[in-house]
C-alpha cells in the first residue's frame, strides 16, 4: 500500500517538474529572440541609415562615421573618427 502511494507521488512530482522547465524554456527563448531582435534591428537600422546618408549625399565632405570594429586595432594612416571634433567634416 505504502509502495503504491510512493510510486503515484513520484509520478506526480515528475510530471510537475517536467512541466516547469517547458514553460521556462518557452519564456526564455522568447526573451532571447526579443533581445537579439532588438540588436539586429538596431544594427540594421543603423547601417541602413548610414548607407542612406552615404548614397544620398555624394558630397566631397562627409561626417566621420564610426566603424563597429574600429577600436579593435590601433589606428593606422589617418585619424580615427573619435579624434575628429564635433561638427568637423573632413574630405573623404
Amino acid at each position, binding site marked *: 500500500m505504502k509502495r503504491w502511494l510512493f510510486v503515484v507521488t513520484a509520478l506526480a512530482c515528475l510530471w510537475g517538474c517536467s512541466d516547469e522547465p517547458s514553460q521556462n524554456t518557452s519564456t526564455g527563448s522568447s526573451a532571447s529572440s526579443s533581445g537579439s531582435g532588438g540588436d539586429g534591428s538596431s544594427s540594421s537600422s543603423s547601417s541602413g541609415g548610414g548607407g542612406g546618408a552615404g548614397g544620398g549625399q555624394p558630397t566631397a565632405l562627409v561626417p566621420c562615421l564610426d566603424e563597429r570594429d574600429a577600436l579593435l586595432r590601433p589606428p593606422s594612416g*589617418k585619424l580615427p573618427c573619435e579624434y575628429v571634433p564635433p561638427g568637423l567634416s573632413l574630405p573623404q
Partner: protein
Amino acid sequence: MKHTPLTFSILAGALATSAAAEAHISAVSPTLIAGKTTVVELSVGHGCEGSDTYAITVEIPKGMISVRPMSSDFGKTSLTYDAADPALVTTVTWQKDDADALPGDTNYYRLAFRAKAPSAPFTSIYYKVHQVCRAADATLSYAEWVALPGEMGEPAAAQAIVPDHLPGWNKYTVPADIADLSVFFSDAHIVWRGTDAYSFNDNTVDLIKGTSGVTLLSADGVKANDEIWVRY
C-alpha cells in the same frame, strides 16, 4: 672595441651627473586644474652635497588659497600668514627633529599640501622652495630653488594651470596666447583649432599628417580668443 674600467668609470660618472641634474625639487604633477582644490605634492630628490634634507620651506604663490599642509617624514609643520589677511598662508615649513636627521643624503622625500588653485587657466604657477640640509656633524647647508623662467639659479617648482575638463571633448576660448601647447596639453589626446590639429603624442602626430584636410598645428600656434576643441 675594448671596454676598459676607465671607460665604465667615465660612463658611470656621466650617468650620475645626469641623474643629479634631473633630481630637482619639483612638483610631482605637472598640472593642476584652475579653481579646483587639489593636493600639491613636491618631490625632494636629494639633499645638499652629501647632507640629508633637514627642513623645507615652500612659498605659497599668490592666488593659491585654502592651504593645509600634510604631515610627513619631517613631522610637524609650521605656517606663516599674510599680514593683511591672516587667513592666507604665505609659507609652509616642514622641519625634522634633530634626532631624525639622517647621517647622509640617502633618502627621497615627498611633501604635500592641499590648496585651491587660482582660476587662471593657461598660466603657470611657481613654488619657491628653500632647502636646509644637516650634515652628520650638525653643520647646516642651504639650497634655494627660487629661479623663475629666464632667471639664473636653481628653478622654482612649477605647475601649469589647465582648465577644468571631462573625459571626451572639451571646448575652450583661449584667454591669451599659448607659447607652448605641450605645457598644458601633454595629457590630452588631441587639440584642434579649426582644421589644424596638435598632439603631444608622436604617433597621433603621424596620424594628423596622414589625414587629408588636416594640417599640423604648431605648439605655439594658438592665440588669444582662438576657439579650440580638446579631447582628453
